[in-house]
């Protein structure tokens, strides 16, 4: 009877275990294993190369450049995008007019496809002289010296990508921050007010500490989402543009499709995945300490 009961329990978890094994665990093991092979992705011949692919990554300047580029975009998203999202969430958490309208408006960019966002912004800030709407507006306002080739100037192309990415992504942070703010009991603010606390004190001593788990969640999601950016770059600047807008996923794609080096691409994926895990772990530890403090 007991055996039957145990078997029944296993049967109930079997579908979930099967799905996770087939779609997550096996592919992960396969990718990990392929990282040690040279393989073109088509033939059945795979040549075992040991750690050669990983050693090559260490000396692959394009790869590290792409990581730096993705980190730069992530840094801007972590600060500019999330601060903006937090401030807007704070504003919409109050009793202001049209707050539902703002909520909808702020959430439109995240639901748009990255390809669409790239094409819209490409239309606005394309580098065809005379056709760039931002430049025309700047010139119209007498700020012609600020007009730029936003996408093809190597000094600002990556920043342009980062800003468009922030425009697209801040709505997610806004929603999560807003949900977090709404879970803070209003009695805490009322008690603080009775004790003579001003708005800044309430924010510093109530809002911020209670929002730390949410801030960490948004930060982790921002890092994971932004480091893996690539569709927006393709639709905005056509690709890696002399290496200035190169990011890890584009490099992995180049290894896989451009060079037909599936083994190397898998090694790059593993390295990239490990880096993301380490960053997320550091963020988690940091937040744990912050909460304890």
């Amino acid at each position, binding site marked *: 009877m007991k055996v039957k009961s145990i078997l*029944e329990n296993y*049967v*109930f978890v*079997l*579908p979930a275990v099967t799905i996770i094994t087939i779609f997550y665990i096996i592919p992960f093991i396969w990718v990990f294993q392929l990282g040690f092979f040279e393989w*073109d*992705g*088509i*033939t*059945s011949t795979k040549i075992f190369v040991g750690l050669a692919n990983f050693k090559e990554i260490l000396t692959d300047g*394009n790869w590290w450049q792409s990581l730096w580029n993705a980190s730069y975009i992530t840094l801007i998203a972590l600060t500019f995008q999330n601060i903006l999202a937090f401030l807007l969430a704070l504003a919409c958490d109050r009793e202001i007019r049209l707050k539902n309208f703002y909520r909808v408006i702020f959430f439109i960019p995240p639901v748009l496809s990255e390809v669409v966002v790239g094409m819209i912004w*490409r239309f606005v800030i*394309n*580098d*065809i*002289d*005379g056709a760039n709407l931002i430049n025309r507006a700047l010139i119209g306002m007498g700020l012609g010296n600020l007009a730029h*080739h936003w*996408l*093809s*100037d*190597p000094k600002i*192309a990556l920043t342009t990508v980062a800003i468009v990415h922030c425009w697209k992504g801040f709505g997610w942070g806004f929603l999560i921050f807003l949900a977090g703010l709404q879970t803070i009991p209003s009695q805490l603010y009322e008690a603080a007010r009775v004790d003579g606390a001003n708005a800044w004190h309430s924010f510093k001593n109530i809002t911020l500490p209670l929002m730390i788990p949410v801030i960490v969640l948004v930060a982790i999601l921002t890092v994971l989402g932004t480091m893996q950016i690539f569709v927006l770059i393709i639709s*905005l*600047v*056509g*690709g*890696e*543009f*002399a*290496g200035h807008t190169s990011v890890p996923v584009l490099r992995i794609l*180049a290894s896989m*499709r*451009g*060079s*037909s080096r599936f083994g190397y691409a898998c090694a790059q994926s593993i390295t990239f995945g490990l880096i993301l895990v380490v960053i997320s772990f550091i963020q988690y530890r940091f937040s744990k300490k912050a909460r304890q403090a």
Partner: protein
Amino acid sequence: MSRGVFFKILSLVSLAFVILGCGGPAENKNAITVWHWMTDREPAFQELAKRYEAKTGIRVSFELYAPSDAYSRKVRAAAQGSTLPDIFGILGEKSDFASFVKAGHVLDLTPYMEAGDGSLKNRFFNNALAVNIFNKDNSYGAKPGIYGVPLDVMTIQMVYNKKLLKDLGSNPDKPPVNFQELLDIGKKLKGKDTQGFVSGWGELWMIDCFANNYAFNIMGKDKVLATIRGEVPYTDPDWIQVLDLFRQLAESGFLASGIVTMVNKTAEQLFANEKAVFAFNGSWCVNVYKGMNPDLNYGVILPPKVSDKYPMTIWGGAGSSLMVNANSKKKEDAVKFLDWLTAKEQQAYLAEATNNLPANKECLKDIPQALANFTKGMDSSTHPFVWGVSEFPAVIDALDKGIQSIIIGEKTAEAVAREVQKIKARELSKRK
């Protein structure tokens, strides 16, 4: 419902899923399945499939998977799982094509091509067929043979807007024939809203194509191929001259602003809307321009020469080819269908309906004039697939990105040449 009954139902459902999941893809046993990526040709293919079924009783199922990137991934995945359709195309480099051949996925069509008096083989342009051939002792290690049937051909050339050229004070019937004339046009364009030259140079392969045209013109085919084999360095003065052309074009004002991040669709829109005098584009653009601006009056030229020592050579040959799955049970029917599809009548229909150059040379006289202009470049065409050697992808990547850097004034031709040669040396050392 008792727990026992629920347990039995759950077990049955799980079993059903397992059984269904282990099955192969649903297959229409009477139909020949063709996978393709050519969105613009889909209606014409469907019409031809109907005609073929009416004629032979054999149904042909054209399945469209677009864009080409997604198609390419699907074909690779199908090859890994041995679920390729009866007929398919291979997108990518010749080395990818060779991998499919070596893995036994592609039927050797040589016996069919040479049957009779070689009527199937002889109907195609030589360059169109050549891209599907692996010669004896090819560097890819593929078994020699003909492995694909060309469906259409293409050439990549320069097109120019006759009205805009006239506005610049040039004779529209005498477009530039040498490189200096291009630079002079760039000078005339300074301060005007019109762009000089547009192309999808944000997509690296088009830069590669343009650079190769001039490499062939400046140093000749033998030296270009010697470079690929590693016998001539990229730091050779001829290569530096090729790279420096891009600096000259950029500094003269001939290149459109932002060309290094321009995708070809944008370039096509600018040219079709008469915002650019010149464009560098493939013969597929005839259909695109016709759709965007039916009244566009433009001419087609080879890129103007830098040197008279060697001829200007452009990329051309097979635009799209289809292969037969060597493991298909219907491979004989598939070959017969491709024979029918590339016969004169069907090719003329495809050319008319899709504005693509037919691979069958017998129906050239039936094609529209705009398209016929592109055929003039066929004699000057070559294709990386017929060179017999391939450059390392990492080297191509470095060369193309380096050219982008030259255009934006970030690097000199010499610096790019050194960087490319360094990568070439690294890749060559790996091969050893």
